[in-house]
């Protein structure tokens, strides 16, 4: 019903919505199959494949769920090579093989349905299972020759092209998830629940006959419950405390482990000598809450990766030409002098020289510059560029590890772990806290020592137990963990909770220009000189349709008129332009030199038009700045030092000066390594805490060097470089709010520290006066933890309420 509604609606306005992918298109372009409209042959083919196999349920689950399949001819030939396939597989024997493929397009329930019914399209597949949050599919298939290649080609043909990169080969075995924290929580929770249950009777009926009879049984059971908690669940606290002490740092784990150790030893001594029932239930509860805090702080974005390097951009294999024969070769095995074949949309894997073909290279990965560069035979081509126009033949002049792009990654910043040198707010408070606790323990112990030695020991241990900073240790994980989720809901994805603490300390912001301040999705196209008639526009569109040049396609999308006439004498002159004749009018579309004949160089990118050798005008392409940039900079400039660091030439300088507030430093012509060293020198010399915003691989070094590196992404499913955070471009102008929230979260932590000190003072009162009974500990410790968790959760939600609009 729904679908027919859509069809009738679209018929009325003479526009059609593609049944497969939902793209709106004109009457003249539509392709009809089985009374359904399609925008292109690709979409129609997918529909026909699914229709033949009774899989049209795909279209019932969601409206227009599909994607136009990409042209992949020959792209996956390397999957015929068993050595390469072997490295990708998860499991393999003679009969079956299992592979997990990453498919970025997975986005709806239709996707899950079609991908889990793959066995109906290819009989080699025995079953397939989608992991939606991770956007992966795990396929079990019979291990025949070329089976994987067929499967991958099948997936691509229905619009679900998997993303296979060099990274898959290198990390395949390291991806095992670490579940030890969950096991530890399970152990601690199990012990906590059961020991509460068993210790409960003794809290109330101390001298009852029945209870006295079984007292020792209960106590020893408590002891055995606490053993796995102390020696397994809490072992990380001990090892971290010892590590800290060796380095001379009193981190928060020192008072925690001291508390746990004293709790355990004192309780054990108490039950051995029958002094009392001990504090075993408080002990398990404490460890349980602490571990929960750790769990809550863990990052939760399965489908995002913050550790990507160039490997996730590079293909696994390329086509090598030896003696006129093509063969697939793994990238690592490439040598100097190898002849390679680069197909359309493929990445140049290695620094090389162009031998043959029309090179139109998009270096946006490397330099951030989006306008493709034309190269002639004999020109040098750097690794990381993407070929946009046809097939190339190149000769490698270096090995992969020597390439310019890969060398960037050998810089030390990528080996450094930012967290190692970071002192968290909890750690900085724990030093004074630990000293204060030890001081109070000694003083009160000393006082009681002169009255009663037994009570003195009792008091010292009680102080150490009650001062165990459970509430303090929970404040930061729950505040930051909750903030991390709130940011994530607003499309700002942080690598971990430490990033928020770092953000709160930032005093300087640096922005990349292309792709960060400007949008790569929309290019502003302006037309200058004499006006074009409608028929002329239609003619130009008709001619443009024949060209695959990126600028032609952009202009074609921009003009979007109906195509009326057929083109005769169409000719494409590589690197110059296109020409064609329609109704005796001869059109020339292309570079200034090609159309007008002048050789002067223009800085900006433009397409010139002439009709019958008469110059008509030009379309110039400009990057469009994101909306609201100006307002955002005005807000930020009050609190932060701002810099724009661009890899481009200074052609945009005047525009930027107009757009941005006056006191912003604009620096141009920065190569990736310049950006890195610029940030390094700022950090060293003027002690700035820098937050860097960038997009391409060219910013990767700068992102790693800065205190907080943020990748700006138009589509978070597309890979972004290694960074601390990924921000969706649509919320880019919310950065001032995010920064403010980061600062406020630190304040929330400080308030909750204040609250937990109050609990500690109450507890210490009982401890130093020698009145700390197990029941008080059992009430006070969970109460303080739970109220702190409640407090910080409510506060973080309260301060972030403004983000919602």
């Amino acid at each position: 019903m729904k679908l027919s509604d859509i069809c009738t609606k679209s018929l009325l306005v003479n526009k059609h919505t593609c049944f497969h992918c939902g793209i709106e298109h004109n009457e003249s372009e539509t392709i009809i199959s089985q009374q359904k409209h399609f925008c292109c042959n690709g979409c129609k083919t997918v529909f026909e494949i699914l229709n033949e196999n009774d899989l049209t349920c795909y279209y019932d689950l969601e409206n227009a769920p599909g994607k136009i399949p990409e042209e992949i001819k020959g792209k996956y030939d390397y999957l015929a090579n068993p050595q390469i396939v072997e490295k990708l597989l998860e499991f393999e024997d003679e009969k079956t093989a299992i592979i997990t493929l990453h498919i970025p397009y997975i986005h709806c329930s239709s996707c899950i349905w079609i991908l889990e019914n793959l066995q109906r399209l290819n009989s080699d597949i025995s079953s397939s299972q989608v992991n939606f949050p991770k956007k992966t599919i795990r396929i079990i298939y019979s291990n025949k020759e070329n089976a994987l290649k067929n499967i991958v080609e099948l997936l691509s043909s229905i619009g679900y092209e998997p993303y296979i990169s060099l990274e898959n080969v290198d990390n395949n075995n390291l991806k095992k998830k670490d579940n030890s924290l969950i096991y530890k929580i399970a152990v601690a929770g199990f012990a906590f629940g059961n020991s509460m249950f068993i210790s409960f009777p003794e809290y109330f009926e101390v001298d009852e006959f029945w209870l006295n009879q079984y007292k020792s049984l209960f106590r020893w059971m408590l002891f055995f419950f606490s053993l796995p908690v102390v020696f397994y669940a809490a072992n990380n606290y001990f090892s971290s405390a010892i590590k800290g002490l060796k380095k001379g740092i009193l981190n928060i784990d020192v008072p925690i482990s001291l508390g746990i150790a004293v709790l355990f030893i004192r309780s054990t001594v108490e039950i051995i000598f029958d002094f009392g029932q001990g504090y075993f239930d408080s002990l398990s509860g404490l460890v349980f809450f602490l571990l929960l805090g750790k769990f809550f702080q863990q990052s939760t974005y399965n489908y995002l990766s913050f550790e990507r390097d160039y490997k996730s951009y590079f293909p696994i294999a390329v086509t090598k030409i030896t003696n006129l024969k093509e063969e697939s070769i793994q990238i690592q095995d490439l040598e100097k002098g190898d002849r390679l074949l680069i197909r359309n949309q493929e990445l140049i894997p290695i620094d090389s020289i162009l031998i043959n073909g029309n090179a139109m290279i998009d270096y946006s990965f490397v330099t951030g510059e989006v306008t493709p560069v034309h190269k002639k035979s004999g020109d040098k081509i750097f690794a990381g560029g993407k070929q946009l126009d046809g097939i190339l033949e190149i000769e490698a002049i270096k090995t992969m590890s020597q390439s310019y792009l890969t060398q960037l990654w050998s810089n030390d910043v990528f080996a450094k772990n930012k967290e190692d040198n970071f002192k968290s707010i909890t750690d900085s408070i724990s030093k004074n806290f630990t000293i204060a606790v030890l001081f109070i323990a000694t003083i009160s112990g000393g006082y009681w020592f002169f009255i009663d030695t037994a009570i003195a020991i009792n008091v010292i241990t009680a102080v150490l137990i009650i001062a165990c900073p459970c509430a303090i240790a929970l404040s930061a994980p729950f505040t930051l963990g909750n903030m991390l989720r709130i940011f994530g809901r607003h499309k700002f994805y942080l690598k971990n909770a430490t990033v928020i603490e770092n953000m709160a300390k930032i005093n300087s912001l640096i922005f990349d220009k292309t792709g960060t301040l400007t949008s790569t999705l929309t290019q502003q196209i302006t037309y200058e000189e004499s006006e074009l008639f409608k028929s002329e526009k239609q003619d130009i569109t008709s001619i443009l349709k024949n060209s695959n040049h990126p600028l032609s396609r952009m202009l074609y999308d921009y003009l979007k008129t109906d195509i009326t006439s057929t083109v005769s004498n169409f000719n494409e002159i590589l690197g110059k332009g296109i020409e064609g004749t329609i109704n005796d009018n001869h059109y020339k579309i292309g570079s200034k030199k090609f159309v007008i004949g002048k050789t002067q160089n223009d800085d900006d990118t433009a397409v010139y038009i002439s009709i019958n050798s008469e110059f008509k005008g030009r379309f110039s392409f400009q990057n469009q700045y994101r909306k609201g940039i100006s307002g955002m900079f005005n807000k930020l400039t009050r609190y932060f030092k701002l810099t724009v660091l661009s890899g481009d030439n200074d052609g945009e300088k005047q525009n930027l000066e107009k757009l941005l507030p006056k006191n912003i430093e604009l620096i141009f012509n920065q190569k990736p390594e310049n950006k890195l060293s610029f940030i390094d020198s700022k950090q060293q010399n003027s002690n700035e805490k820098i937050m860097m915003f960038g997009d391409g691989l060219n910013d990767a070094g700068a992102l790693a060097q800065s205190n907080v590196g943020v990748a700006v992404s138009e589509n978070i499913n597309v890979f972004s470089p290694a960074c601390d955070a990924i921000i969706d471009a649509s919320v880019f102008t919310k950065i001032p709010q995010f920064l403010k929230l980061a600062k406020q979260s630190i304040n929330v932590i400080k308030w909750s520290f204040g609250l937990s000190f109050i609990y500690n003072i109450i507890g210490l009162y009982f401890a130093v006066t020698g009145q700390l009974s197990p029941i008080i500990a059992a009430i006070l410790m969970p109460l303080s933890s739970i109220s702190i968790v409640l407090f910080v959760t409510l506060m973080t939600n309260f301060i972030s309420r403004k983000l919602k609009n």
Partner: protein
Amino acid sequence: MSVIYVLITVSLALALVFFFIFIKSVKSGQFDDTYTPSVRMLFDDEVKNKSPKKSITKTKLNS
């Protein structure tokens, strides 16, 4: 032997059973993906509804 020993053994055994079931389910990957199964279970009905219809129309055509 007092009944308390029986009760404690039973309750502890029960708790341990749950504990090991949990550990086992974590190990088997039950918690790795908590979203897809919720969608998947809705598909079964649709496929079942579809296929009988198909077979009916086919048999009609044949006869």
